[in-house]
């Protein structure tokens, strides 16, 4: 589904490379965890996959379902099925969460040549997904992420994911700022979306999230490259030993 090959990325206005030859292959149905110390390039990877401006790919390629992902605008990527759950979700004052979901879903459907979803169908579509994530009607009426607590923001992100039904979910530090109960709700929401034709990349600093979202593969990202790949037991090892072995020593 996703093939990242020897990806080199730098910031547009800096010469320093952040990703230095990252290679990763993700098949449908798989859940990959990417772990690594701060500054290893985890968030950069999520932004490059979703098409944020400000990054320059100097070498390498990313293909998604056989197509050159890097040639597409963020909205085109979304319509093709790429979704990024933000580490810090953005506030949009005055736009009700429900309205945002509807505009987004229908924009994607239209881009895919599908008919827009009718209001009653859409209500049904959102309702049970919202209930599962403990998102109240009141929250759906409030403006997108405005005044949301940390936990509410993360639940709202996963709700967007559930409503938009992407084929590739990238979760950027979805566990940050969550207490154990909120983490459980979010993880259950994510697990409910696991399916044979959907892949997930779970980016996290801590092993804790992986107790709930059990990955098929764990990768260690350090200094812009994947330096080790293993099964879910690798996460436990990292928890115990820390990232010390993988951090580039200061000269």
């Amino acid at each position, binding site marked *: 589904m996703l093939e990242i090959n020897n990806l080199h990325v730098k910031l547009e206005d800096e010469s320093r490379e952040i990703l230095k030859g990252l290679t990763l292959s993700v098949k449908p149905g798989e859940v990959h965890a990417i772990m690594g110390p701060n500054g290893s390039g985890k968030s950069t990877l999520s932004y490059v996959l979703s098409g944020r401006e400000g990054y320059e790919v100097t070498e390498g390629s990313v293909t998604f379902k056989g197509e050159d992902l890097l040639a597409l605008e963020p909205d085109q990527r979304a319509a093709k099925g790429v979704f990024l759950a933000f580490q810090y979700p*953005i506030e949009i004052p005055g736009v009700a969460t429900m309205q945002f979901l509807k505009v987004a879903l229908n924009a994607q459907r239209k881009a895919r040549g599908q008919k827009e979803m009718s209001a009653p169908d859409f209500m049904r579509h959102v309702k049970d997904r919202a209930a599962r994530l403990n998102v109240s009607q009141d929250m759906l009426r409030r403006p997108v992420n405005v005044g949301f607590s940390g936990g509410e923001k993360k639940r709202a992100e996963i709700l967007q994911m559930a409503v938009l039904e992407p084929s590739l979910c990238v979760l950027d530090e979805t566990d940050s700022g969550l207490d154990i109960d909120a983490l459980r709700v979010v993880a259950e929401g994510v697990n409910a979306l696991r399916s044979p034709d959907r892949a997930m990349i779970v980016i996290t600093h801590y092993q804790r999230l992986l107790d709930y979202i059990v990955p098929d593969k764990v990768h260690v990202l350090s200094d812009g490259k994947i330096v080790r790949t293993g099964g879910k037991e690798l996460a436990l090892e990292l928890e115990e030993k820390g990232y010390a072995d993988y951090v580039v020593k200061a000269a």
Partner: protein
Amino acid sequence: MADLETIELVKDIDVDKYKYGFETDIESELAPKGLSEDIVRYISAKKNEPQWMLDWRLEAFRVWQNMEEPTWAKVSYPKIDFQDLHYYAAPKSTPAPKSLDEVDPKLLETYAKLGIPLKEQEILAGVRKQGEKSELDGESGGEYASGKVAVDAVFDSVSVVTTFKDELKKHGVIFCSISEALREHPELVKQHLGSVVPQGDNFYAALNAAVFSDGSFVYVPPGVRCPMELSTYFRMNAKNTGQFERTLIIADKGSYVSYLEGCTAPTRDESQLHAAVVELIALEDAEIKYSTVQNWYPGDAEGKGGIYNFVTKRGDCRGAHSKISWTQVETGSAITWKYPSCILRGDHSRGEFYSIAISNGRQQVDSGTKMIHLGKNTSSRIISKGIAAGRSDNTYRGLVSAHRKALNARNFTQCDSLLIGDKCGAHTVPYIESKTSTAQFEHEATTSKISDDQMFYCMSRGLSEEEAVALIVNGFVRDVLQQLPMEFMAETQKLIGISLEGSVG
């Protein structure tokens, strides 16, 4: 839902985004170019006005001749040659239509093309039954369950038709052109005309008083809640012509009326002058809600053409417990110079001003309000949302003042500006004057930009760049949008999307 329509519309826009720019090919009767006492007499004679009205105009003209064009607003434009304009233009074919059937089909077609419902017959014929709810009525519901809107259509210098007059008459409501009011209800006009905006109030008001050609007149008798939305639609069509309309609305004791004006003009290379005066009078316990959707031709992206919109709008809360509420959506005009104000004369009276002003291209907006607190326990509220894009300049200019007898005057002002891109400007110029220590005035102001983060967030969810801007801006203006009559909310949301077309990238 409405946002989807916005998006739909934005997507369908071709190069010429101003879709009202067409010209109606209709013969018109023009006054000779230029301004003199003779022209003032010519206009008055055309309208068969009584002597007192002509004298009133001539007095205004003499005052105007000795006045200077104001220069304090943050707008710049080439000097206007007031002698190079026609001050009167009327479609030839319509002497005085009594009903819709007699109106020139070309005119009806024009209004149909603009989406203005001059369709009393359709409603009578049951196309949309009385009381039937439109899908736009939504949960908050319109002010009027009937869903009817009575329209006074003003084409260049004359009112061509007013719909639903008979039905309004049954309730005692007078809704007609001001020319007709001068003939049919001279005593009401004579008593109130100029009582809120005197002839010599300012340069443009004086000009208007001298040469105004038409406009709407409304009188709502005591205790009557006007049974439908009233609306005037202004259309400038003739070339090199100024439009000078005058609107007078009187809400007698304990009455209520909601009024909406809309306006468009053809796309032209040369600029056209529009200088209107609106006077509102609310007596004891009366309430007037006045909404404007201003969509005059804004000029092209380089600033060529467009309407110069110099407007004086003022409401007088003359009676105790009266209320006047202005809501404006300003998307058009090359230059907007407009400060709808409230004189809070009656004790416990209340004034409100809700504004959305959008500027794009080379548009210049200098707009705001004045809340003059004179009576005791008066209150006012100002919510202004300015959105600047392209190379435009967008200024909020407002005055809140309390007279020394205005005990316990209260005001809350909130001015928010949103910038799109880095070549536009937003400015907030509030003036606050209080002569009583019992006044409580609050002022809040913010300036923000549509952030890259917001854009990316929306786009990563599947919205295109323009869909994202329309959504974010509609969110930004939401508080004000909600003040508009339901019928016009959806239309306005679309308009916002269209006005900002080409503002990104």
